[in-house]
């Protein structure tokens, strides 16, 4: 049966709790860095099209 989101959350928390940090931390790092790169690329593209100030407003609402 396919793992649900809830199943994944529980399984991952168990891994973090029970397994050595060296085992799970690189996986999490790769995920976080990929998310970051994706966000950077998006804001850069948006800034190229609409200007840096518009991108800043989009990000912060300021």
């Amino acid at each position, binding site marked *: 049966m396919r793992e649900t989101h809830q199943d994944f*959350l*529980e399984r*991952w*928390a*168990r*891994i*973090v*709790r029970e397994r050595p*940090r060296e085992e*799970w*931390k*690189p*996986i*999490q*790092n*790769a*995920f*976080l*860095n990929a*998310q*970051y790169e994706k*966000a*950077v690329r998006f*804001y850069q593209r948006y*800034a190229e099209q609409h200007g840096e100030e518009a*991108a*800043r407003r989009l*990000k*912060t609402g*300021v």
Partner: protein
Amino acid sequence: MERAVADTNILDTFVKDFVAVVEPLARYIIVSGFVAISHGRMRGTEDIDMILERLEKDTFKKLHEALVQAGFECVQSSDATTIYEYLTSNTAVRYVRKGTFVPEMEVKFAKDALDDDQLKRRVKLPLSGLDVWFSSIETNIAFKEELLKSPKDLEDAAHLRRVYEGELDEEEIERVKALIRRLRL
């Protein structure tokens, strides 16, 4: 090379660099989502939340200048007096590395007895692998379950409960929840 990339992540590095500037000048805590993420929670964020003790204007100016010196900039303004006015009117201000959009450190001053309580009881959390002051796990769970309550926040709280299973002080969680009900709801 792949391994070297995965040895650290951008959020940890950003927090460590920012905190290194704040630490000598002000009492602070990191709160909310990053607490769960630094305990392995698998979700992205662009914002990290920091609560600062209420500073005198001169001290804040020193802090702002030190942050600028270290390569950070405030998104709302480059003028320390203006930023200080935001903070004293309980508006959060955002710092990024100069010329970037993400990640952001969202900084606010302690605004009530609940924030003072969090600052007073701040802790370092070895499981995070970071030499950084956090609000306690119990406090974070209480905020997420009693005040914030979005699906993401409830999943953060559930993650912290699983990681710290058998080690949590439930009376402390209830004490903070009572404070939240009295001061924030």
